């Protein structure tokens, strides 16, 4: 269901006009009302008058997470602090947290984009939404809460954790919509199985999962175990929280609510814009935010954009589910390589387990990539020629996907160190 038909199906031309108008207003406010942004724009030699069209956005400087932290707590504020109605922050596990300050209007926009998110997965006023995202400074809990309220659904604000209680509430109140992280949904499914709960007998029908990367395989698993349709939703505290983009009922790429959040894909190395379909770093600008506007935030999330029209009728650009992080990206002989691409190739091959490690070395000024793959029982052969054939086959497939040569080396199982289930995937031995 399309929540806001007017804005979600706006013609591309009218959308661009709206985006231009909003960007101009945003840049004016940031320049005039915020010394940090003014300093950045002056350093880049850009004035608000230089923005004549949405495409002029590329003239504006990027902002990074590190810069946002530097100006903690109020440095991004571009309005009177008395107009702020609510504050959220990132967890701050890797440093000072990033602050998201919302005016009353910002909270309305947040409710609006979250209503779109939940509605695009079929949520209506008749639904009972079990919101197992954490409530508090974290944006997940209240984001979903506001969206569900806006739709008029019944909210069960259970927050995260206490799985037994989650199952009890789900059963007793007849939850129809579940919102949590994808990994927690599987945890609930497992716990439910132990409690002998038959999810097919519960009225659950949709789930909205985000806040961490997941895969198509995980979707299949969640849908099978919980008997619901699982939707990927995307957002981040630096921008607004959840509500930046979400899948529609076709579950084919995530619609970006680009009347509020303008997405770009850039080459993380050069900062140059990349065309549709090419993987790169997602950059987002909050076109309508008042409290803490964000101009060209480098998300470090890797994805690509697709401007082709979706069959659902929405006209917005769509993004692929997050494919990885630029922190994991390797540049090998000038080519960007993401571990997720390699994993994709390996998973396609019969008998190959996704246990791999990438080793990069530089010899005589040239980069060499070695992909170490653990030998599973399924691919082990007593004959060298069969194992070498496997290696060659993987090398060929990797070359087709990465466009560079990677040497494949078979290693013993468990040779790749695992810590807390998360394997160390990259060893970069290059000394630059």
């Amino acid at each position: 269901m399309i929540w806001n038909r007017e804005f979600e199906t706006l013609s591309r031309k009218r959308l661009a006009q709206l985006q231009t108008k909003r960007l101009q207003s945003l840049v004016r406010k940031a320049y005039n009302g915020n010394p940090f942004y003014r300093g950045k724009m002056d350093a880049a030699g850009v004035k608000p008058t230089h923005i004549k069209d949405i495409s002029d956005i590329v003239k504006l400087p990027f902002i990074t997470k590190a810069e946002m932290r530097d100006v903690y707590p109020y440095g991004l504020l571009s309005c009177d602090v008395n107009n702020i109605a609510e504050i959220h922050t990132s967890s701050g596990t890797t440093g000072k947290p990033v602050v998201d300050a919302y005016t009353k209007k910002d909270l309305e926009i947040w409710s609006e984009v979250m209503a779109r998110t939940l509605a695009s997965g079929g949520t209506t006023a008749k639904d009972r939404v079990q919101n197992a995202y954490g409530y508090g400074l974290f944006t997940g809990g209240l984001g979903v809460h506001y969206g569900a309220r806006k739709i008029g659904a019944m909210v069960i604000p259970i927050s995260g954790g206490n799985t037994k209680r989650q199952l009890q509430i789900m059963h007793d109140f007849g939850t129809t919509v579940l919102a949590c992280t994808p990994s927690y949904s599987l945890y609930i499914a497992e716990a439910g199985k132990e409690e002998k709960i038959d999810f097919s007998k519960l009225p659950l029908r949709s789930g909205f999962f985000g806040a961490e990367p997941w895969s198509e395989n995980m979707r299949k698993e969640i849908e099978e175990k919980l008997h619901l349709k699982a939707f990927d939703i995307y957002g981040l505290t630096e921008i607004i929280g959840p509500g930046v983009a979400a899948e529609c009922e076709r579950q084919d790429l995530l619609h970006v609510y680009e009347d509020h959040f303008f997405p770009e894909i850039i080459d993380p190395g050069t900062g140059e814009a990349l065309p549709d379909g090419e993987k790169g770093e997602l950059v987002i600008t909050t076109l309508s935010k008042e409290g803490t506007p964000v101009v060209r935030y480098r998300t470090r999330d890797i994805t690509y954009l697709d401007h082709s029209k979706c069959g659902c009728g929405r006209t917005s650009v769509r993004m692929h589910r997050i494919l990885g992080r630029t922190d994991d990206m390797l540049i090998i002989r000038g080519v960007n390589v993401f571990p997720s691409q390699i994993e994709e190739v390996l998973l396609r091959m019969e008998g190959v387990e996704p246990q791999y490690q990438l080793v990069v070395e530089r010899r005589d000024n040239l980069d060499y990539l070695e992909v170490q793959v653990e030998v599973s029982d399924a691919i082990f052969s007593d004959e060298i020629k069969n194992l070498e054939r496997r290696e060659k086959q993987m090398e060929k497939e990797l070359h087709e996907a990465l466009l560079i040569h990677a040497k494949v080396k078979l290693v013993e199982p468990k040779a790749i160190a695992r810590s807390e289930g998360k394997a160390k995937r990259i060893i970069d031995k290059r000394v630059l």
Partner: protein
Amino acid sequence: MNIQQISVFLENKPGRLANVALILKENKINVRALTIADTSDFGILRMIVNKPEQANEVLKKAGFTVKLNTVIAVEISDREGIFYDIMSLCDKNDLNIEYTYSFVEQHSNMAILFLRFENGDKAIDVLTKNGYKLLRDEEVRKI
């Protein structure tokens, strides 16, 4: 006529063989014959042992990738020219050999040649028809 052989995947790293040897020792498994095939990256250790099923189990438990498969064991007299006799016989009959290794018995003047053929059944047929004695699994274990 097929003899059980155990194959272990090994990385070319110091200490890996010693590790396998220790596990066999701790489980009182005796190695009758062995060979290592290697590339620049990895090796395959092939062994004839007195307790192949147990070896398979304990090595797997220790995290190795292991496979039980079969080879043919031909008992031959330990004399010059015998290796040629067998090889030329195989050649004449288009028997493709994947690999071979041998072992000399201590208390007799006999030797055992272990062979892995592309077509094992045909090889058994040709060898027995030409008077070669193929050992059975129990016989090899008793050596």
